[in-house]
């Protein structure tokens, strides 16, 4: 059987990749994907804990979090489309109308 620490380390690695992606990437869509990766890393940890503790709560949380992530993605992609219509680019280096 795979120990719980393996799942937690995987979750931490995914979370790390996601947060580095948000901070380093210059492309809005990649940034958005990285945030989704971070959310799924948290889901991973929740399921791992839930399995280890033999409780159902964690599984239920994951379903609701997936729903929220979908809602967030819908709004986020709509904003990205509006942005692209305005300036034909999704490169965040060009979002400098206001001092960042």
């Amino acid at each position, binding site marked *: 059987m795979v120990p719980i620490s393996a799942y937690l380390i995987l979750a931490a690695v995914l979370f790390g990749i996601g947060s580095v992606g948000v901070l380093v990437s210059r492309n809005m869509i990649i940034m958005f994907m990285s*945030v989704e990766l971070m959310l799924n890393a948290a889901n991973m940890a929740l399921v791992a804990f839930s399995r280890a503790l033999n409780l159902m709560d964690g599984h239920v949380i994951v379903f609701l979090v997936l729903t929220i992530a979908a809602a967030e993605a819908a709004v986020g992609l709509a*904003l990205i489309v*509006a942005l692209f219509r305005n300036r034909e680019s999704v490169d965040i280096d060009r979002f400098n109308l206001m001092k960042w």
Partner: protein
Amino acid sequence: MEAQLPPYSIKMMLPELFLFVWALVVITFDLLTRRKSGSAVGYLAMLGLVICGGILSITGYGRGFGMMFINDPVAVFFKVIFLGAAFMAIGSSFGITNRKIVNHRGEYFGLILLSTVGMMFLASSQELLSLYIGLELTTIPLFVLAGFFKDDRKSVESGIKYMIMGALSSALLLYGISFLYGLSGTTDIVQMKINLAVTQLANEGDIGVILILATVTILAGIGFKLALPPFHQWAPDVYEGSPTPIAAFLSVGSKAAGIVAFVKIMMLGLEAFYDPVMKPNDWGILVGVLAIAAMVWGNVAAVRQSNIKRMLAFSSIAQAGYIMIGMVAMNQYGLAAVGFYTFVYMFANMGAFAIVTVVEDQTGSCKISSYAGLSRTSPFLSAALAVFLLSLAGIPPLAGFFAKYYVFAAAIAMAGSSNGHTWLYWLVGVGLLTTVFALYYYANVIKTAYFAREASPYRLRPLRPALLVIAIGLLGVLIFGVVPETIVDFARDLPYYIAH
């Protein structure tokens, strides 16, 4: 074995359910009238908030859905703040909806109401999952609202910045929540506190590195919502670009939602790890450092802003720092001071933003220089703006002074009570010092409006709802400045409910 379901007591949830349905009614009404309803849809939304307040007053205290939903004085107090903030945001939006977003009025008002529903759920949640969902229901409509002028590059840019930062912060929060769940085996916050304390005692006071990691990630997640440095970079840009009433709603409603989340998770759930007797713990010092950073950076950066929305954004960062002083002073006065501060901050900040909206509608500019000479052409609005800004700065007869006074008094009382807390004196010292900076930049706006050589070319004619909002703000700031006891007596009871 027959499973026993807890009683639902859906009655407790009545205000939220009503407001949720009303939001859909508002959107449908706008569609049914073929988008030609004029101001009626806005008045409909304001009516819904008033009715919701009425329902809230007769719902009473109690629990529902097991322990997940709780209507205690803390929840009701903050719900009143959310409803008030939404009411004032909608009231000051009429100028914008009549000219700029004629075809989407229903969605605009409906989304504000939906965001308010999320805040109310958040205030009532006693459980990590419903708290997370409430926070998301609060912020997702706000992403849309921030980018609502979809042909305006600045607005869309601010919407997308807010969306990335909001999603990042909720991912951090969720990661922290997953650790809390893993360590305690429950999502109920009260039960979590007990389980964590038992684990801690079994390990002879050592709380382990994972709990510290969880505390830090949750603090970062909530810090984004509260715009505490170093997580504050989004705030000035988002406030500048988004529609002005939405910036006001962000600075009061969304901030109060972050405060409730902080109270629920840190003060209620992780209370044991505040106590300096236990080691190595103490999120208090961590929050204290964030509060100092917020007060110093917010006030210093606000001094050199020429755009009044950016200035108010930095000022709201600083105000969050003052509120955090009350949080760190976790004695019986701390939470009461936080509640009173947030309540008064709502009146002053929403009022100031309402006037900024009126000026922006008329002049099309948010520059502080466009306020020059306004006192000659619009004496009432200039005086109101001066009152709101002086209340934010904390000048004695106004309510903002008592808010700051209570926060500092709570911290001093805590600092004097035990040796482990003497560092709170430093916090109060920094707070008092930075208040001087704050006075400078608030007074700068008043000086521009009152001591210009020439009279302003503009005569401000606010719409009636905006005048109502300004009147409510003035009444709140003046009445609670003269007789703060009315609210303080209620707020004083809050800590007893959070402790049990």
